[in-house]
Each structure stands twice: as structure tokens, then as C-alpha cells.
């Protein structure tokens, strides 16, 4: 066990866990922030996507010992960001969700995309969203919602 000081959604958090514990499980079980989801544990589905120093990251494969002082942003904190708010609004407006389990990760990937590329092409969308699995296959509406968020912000 070791103690780690984390910066999550702008707040300082202290946790005492095994150094190998993935960030995902620290968020879910120590900090009780369950909006970040467990889907595969091998970074193959994107349900656990968070932003680490602004970059979309699969939290299921990042041991807590490697997080350091990098800012962690989760779905619970993404509305603090104007791009985050626009994406969430677009998601609701386009009625994207079905079961909704993967959507935290989808939104986190979409926000990272739009912060990097404010006017993405279809190819940009496919590339950035390409690792986020949705078994309900809401992909058509995800594309529409990303485009809607772009419209809202311009």
C-alpha cells in the first residue's frame, strides 16, 4: 500500500492503495466516482476513458503509481469545460444513449477530439472514436452529436 495525492476534476484527493491499482478502480472504489466504467480492463473498449493532463486515456491500464501530479478529468467533471458542456448537450439533444454504459467514455473521447480538432472530418471522428466500443451501436448518433456540438460552439 502507498499513499497518493491526486488532482481529480480540480480537487485534491488522497488515496491509500496498492501501487498497481489502475486509476479506474481508484476512481470507482476509493473515490466512489462510478461514472467512469469498467468494460474490458485491457484498453480495448474505451468505457473507462478519462483525461490525463487533457489527453484521452484508458484509465483501466494506468496504474495509480504512474499518474503523478497530472490532472485527472472524469465524466463527473467534464461539464466544468465549455467543450464538455457542448458535447453533453449535443448528446442529449441527439438522443444518443441507449443502455448508456459506454457513453461516459464516448463523451470523454469526443471532448478530447474537439479540443484538439475543433472542426473534425469524418476521418478524424472515426480515428478518435475508433477505440470506443458501443454494443448498442449508437454510432450514427454519436457522429451526429459530435457535429452538433461543433455547430453549437461556432
Amino acid at each position: 500500500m502507498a499513499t497518493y495525492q491526486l488532482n481529480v476534476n480540480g480537487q485534491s484527493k488522497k488515496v491509500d492503495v496498492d501501487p498497481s491499482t489502475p486509476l479506474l478502480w481508484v476512481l470507482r472504489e476509493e473515490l466512489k466516482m462510478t461514472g467512469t466504467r469498467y468494460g474490458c480492463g485491457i484498453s480495448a473498449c474505451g468505457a473507462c476513458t478519462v483525461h490525463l493532463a487533457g489527453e484521452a486515456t484508458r484509465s483501466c491500464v494506468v496504474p495509480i503509481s504512474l499518474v503523478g501530479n497530472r490532472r485527472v478529468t472524469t465524466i463527473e467533471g467534464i461539464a466544468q469545460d465549455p467543450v464538455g458542456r457542448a458535447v453533453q448537450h449535443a448528446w442529449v439533444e441527439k438522443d444518443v444513449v441507449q443502455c448508456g454504459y459506454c457513453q461516459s467514455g464516448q463523451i470523454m473521447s469526443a471532448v478530447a477530439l474537439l479540443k484538439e480538432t475543433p472542426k473534425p472530418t469524418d476521418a478524424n471522428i472515426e480515428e478518435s472514436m475508433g477505440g470506443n466500443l458501443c454494443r448498442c451501436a449508437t454510432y450514427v448518433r454519436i457522429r451526429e452529436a459530435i457535429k452538433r456540438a461543433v455547430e453549437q460552439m461556432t
Partner: protein
Amino acid sequence: MRAASRSFNQADINRRSFLRTSSVAAAGLLVSLYLDLPAFANEGAQTPPPKVYPPDAFVHVRPDGKILITVNRLEFGQGVQTSLPMVLADEMDADWSQVVPELAPAADVYRDPVFGIQMVGGSGSIAHSFTQYRELGAKTRAMLVAAAADRWKVSPDQCRTENSVVYGPNGKSARYAELARDAARKPVPEKVSLKNQSEFRLIGKKIPRLDSAAKCDGSQKFGLDLDLPGMKIAVVAHPPVFGARVKSIDDKEARGMSGVKDVFEIPLVKGSGVAVVADRFWTAKQGRDSLKIDWDLSGVELADTSQLWTKYKALARTPGNVAVARGDDKALDRIPAARRIVAEYEFPYLAHTPMEPLNATVRFEGNKAEAWVPSQFQTMDQMAIAEVLGLKPEEVMFHTEYAGGGFGRRAVIDSHVPREAAMIAKRLKGTPVKLVWTREDDVRGGYYRPMHAHRVEIGIGADGMPAAWRHVIVGQSLVAGTPFAAMMIKNGVDQTTVEGTSDTSYNLTNFHVSAHNPTVNVPVLWWRSVGNTHTAFVMETLIDELATRAKMDPIAYRRKLLKPEAKKLRGALDVLDQQSAWRTSLPKGHVAGVACHECFGTAVACAVEVSIENKRPKIHRATVAVDCGLAVNPLTIESQFQGGLGFGITQLMAGGAITFKDGRVEQRNFDGYTPPYIVDAPVTIDVHIVPGTDAPTGCGEPPVPVISPAVVNALAKLTGKRYRSLPLKNV
């Protein structure tokens, strides 16, 4: 009305009372519409139990005007927690902005009115509960009107309702919330008249989902998110081969881990496993992965995919148990070989892999228990937990948790996941235990869409239409040896093996269908759209091949061959035909493919625009026309079809197969078993709903079967090849 006329069940009332009193405690002042009826009064035992179950099990009008509507089904993406409340609220004339849906716990009153158990499946959520929820709404409205009429000393006929308000003569009005207490004392009407369709305010409108916001800000809780005081997490080491048993365990390392509470063997439905219980998931998983287990494989059949294909293909060359015998079974033999098609198809095992891994939480208290399960089969799961714990089902308070998908995987007849959780909870009496199946457990854990072989021989008449059709299907039964067998196995044929072929909408003469249901040591399960996943593929690729040979337009050919009574399918094809964009002005290298299929009462016609990119089909556009009767929420229907088509693409994926070697599953996670990602799904999907006024039919299962045959029918135009073996290899 079926639900309200069910006989009174004391256990339901007790459970219901428990729920309501809990919410009273939580909310402070709370007036239930039926506060004085037994759901509450039973606590004080002042009022005798009623003869019928009151509708307050479904509707709860609060003093703040909020209307809680209980949904008798799991919400797992299909949108039922929006669409069933719409149906009730419409008849009740409730203010939609004040409606709050709740998922029902397990109780007899929430059983599916058609299936007789509490469940989601068979595309029945709307189809089976539409009238039930309309009547519940109408009865509630009638009681509110009766209360207002009494108050104003007028006849109920002089009152009208709108947006949660009753209006009477001389400008009188009262809000539902004000009337709730009086309305609760009114008798539940035996009969009520329902609205004409022209009077609907909500039904038929594109109403946005009620769960969007919570699913977009992370606040939605799924079963896996449950957190209870003192809760422990369990992860189980399952046998490497189905049915194997633990011979010996070396758990030294696990027991040495900080946070591991216990390690012990548990019996499974078949064989045994080892449970590791810890404070946290990560610890439990580390502990589980550190176990060194010697497994006893004696007497356990080792499934092997290549051997199974050999066996299945040989079986497919012999007649099986007869499902359909129409016309002359020798007619085929009289047709010259040049006018015959012989086609052999292969379909692999498929895992459902819902995004939320399987889980169940159970707390055993000795004489009662509580369970929290994202379940499609509440009745079965509650019974299974009770059986393991030596309790009566009604002694298990069973909460339906929101599920991250399911597609059939949470509707398991043997309830193996809740059973496992109960086994562990039994040992940790008093402690809530959340059992988590890791993704590896899920991919390797069985309960797959069975593998199937089809062999079809078709004799073609001089007019290019099929003159004889002999069809043999080989695949495991989904229900043999279960309580469902009596209902679903006919003449030795599991109807889910042949559905989609035996009940084809095409007018096939000299039509013979038979099936073999071999026994294999691999647990199998219904996978969204069940038998239609493979039968529609076979039927629609062969019909397309026949149309091509006859040099006919694929839609015209299908129309010509459809039975006269296939009105829905014909209508869907007409609408698809009118939406011509999918086949006009296609870019170079793009072609269109078509398929249609009716199942679960809903007819679907689909066209796709496809090209080949990196040896894989790229689906640029899909256009679907659907006839599902009255469209209750066209927005949900559109979403179900867009998503269902995407789900159907699972079986076209290069990694869309579960395979076995020496009894072991060769895949382990999404690195080996790969469902469709955004690049694999159609770029755009246009859904056209055929206007209808007939009883609504399902939209969960019917989107799935059409997409894969439509895609390979398009590929056939590009490559000249026919694709009969799935998963689809590089083209």
C-alpha cells in the same frame, strides 16, 4: 385488465409496502395516490387486503405533482422506461414533464402479461404491455375524476382532464396532486374506455428518452456501480472447460494479499469454481488470477470447433426432425442439376458481450435476503437465489438494477450468475457481496449464440422461382432440458433453431425443413433476434442469389415470391423501394444490397450501400423500412433500428466468433472477440416507419437479422462470390 385482475398476493404487498415506506422515510412528507389502500395500510393492518392488486403498484402521484410510474421491465437500452410511462401517462392525461420512471422489483404483479414471468425478451416490452399500461392510466384517471366529481358534487361526465388537472363545470379545476388522497379511496374501476388513437397526446410522438442526462454526466448507476456499507467484492475462477471441477487449490499467494477476506470452492451449475472475496475489485481479481488450481477434467467433453464442423456438416446431409413438410418431398430430385442450388452455411458461436460486465449483489440474512441484479429474468433469478439460500422466492427482496446492455445475456434460464453470487453470500452471511464477472469471464464463460450449419437444396422452376426447397439446420437447442422445452420444442425440433425458415414469409412450394439439435458441452443462449440471426441470413442470401439467376430486380423478385398474407413485409418493401436514394447515383465502387425479414411480428426491409476498403465491407449507408404496427415512440424505434443494425454486424466482423480448441475458448477479451466499432458500422442509417394503426409489435430484436445478408448480397455484386461462412473472411 390482466395485471389488476391478478389475484392478491400477500408477498407482493409486503414488498411493495417496504418500498413505499422506505421512500416515505427518505422523502419526509409523501402522499401516495393510494396511500390508504393496503400497499401502505398493511403496515398498520387497519384495512383488509383488497380483492385485486391496486394500480398504485404502477402509479404514484406525489403532493409535489411528480408522477412516479413503475416499469415492469428491465431498462437496458431499449427505452422502455420512457415508452411505457408515455403509454400510461397518455391515458392518464398526466403532465409528461412531471413523470418519473422507476424500475419494478421482482413481484408477481410485474410479470409479463403474455409470458407469465417477469422478464424482457422476445421483443415483448411494448407489444405485451401496451394495453396493460393504457388501462392502468385510464383507471387512474377515472379515479382522479371521480374524486373531483365528488368534491364538486357533479357527475364525472361533466369533468375533463388535461396535463394533470381535472376541469369541472363553472371554471372549477383541481390538480391531480390535490386529488390524490381522495382518489385513493375510490374503488379501482373494473372497466374503463380507452382513447381513440386520434386523441393520443404522447403515443406516436418522438419523445426524448428520460435517462439521457444521467447517462451523459456519469450519474446513472448500473448494477456494477452498487455500493453498500460493508460490501465485499467476489471474483470467481471458473473452470477452463465447462463442467470441470476443482481438484486442488493453491491459494497461498491470494490469502497473503492485503484486503483478501476469503478463498473457497463453490459449486457451479456445472462443475465447480473458486471464489475470492476481497474489499475491492482489484484485490479480488489479483487474488483470483494468482490462484493455482488443478482441475479435474474426467468425464468432461472437450468441445473443438473444427471437429464440431465436421460433425455438423455430416449431420446436415441427413434429414433431421421434421419442422415443415409441405408438398412433394421428391420434387427436388426431379429437377435437373443445372437448375439446382446446393448451399452449405456455417455460423460460429457468438458472445453477447454487453458493455456492462455481468454482476449480481446478494445479502443473506438467514431468514431473508436482498438482491440487486441487472436482470432480464427477474422471476427466474429471484427463484434461483432463493433456492440456493433455502428461502422462498418472496423472502428474497429483488431489486432490478439498470443494465449496461444485455441482448439476451441477462435472461439465462439457469440464472448462473445470481446463483454464484448467492453461493458466495451464503457463506458470508450478513455481508453484502457483489459478484463481478470480468470481461474474460464473460467472453470465456459460455452461454453463446450456438454455432449452426445449414444445408439447403433448391430446385429452380422454369420461371426462375423456387420449385422445391429442402433445408436442414444443425445447432444446439436453447431450451432442451429446461422448463421452456415443453412450450418451445415441437416434434423434437427446438423452434428457435428453425424460426425464420420454418415460418418464412415466402410462398415456397415443396418446402421441407428439418433440424438436428445435437448436445455439445457448451452452454448456449438466445442472442438478440435468436434463430433469425442465422436463418434470415440463409434465406435472404439464397433469395438474392435466385433473383440474380433469374435476372430480376431483388425487390421485384421478393414481392413476387412473398405470401399474399405477408402484408407488413410487402408494405416495408414498398417503402424501401420508394426511398430510391440508396440505389441511385452511387459513387464508383459502391453497390447496393437488399434483404428483408419479418420476425416478432415486425417486418423490416433493408438496403445498404457498400464498397470494399482494406478487404472489408465499408457500409456507407443503410436504409430501413419497418412496419411495427402503431409506432409508440418513433424516436426510440429509430434508435433501436440504428443500433440493432449495428449489433447485427457483429457476425460479419473478422473477429466475430467464439471458437474452441481442446474444450477451451480461444478468445479471451475484445482483443480476440471483436464486436463492431464506429468504423465498422454504417456511416448513416435512415429509418422509415410504415404508418400503422395495428397493435404495436417489437423493435428490439427485428433490426438485427437484415443487415448481414444485405451486406453480403452487395459484396456478391462486387466480387461475384457468395458468402456462406461466417465470420466474414477478408474479401
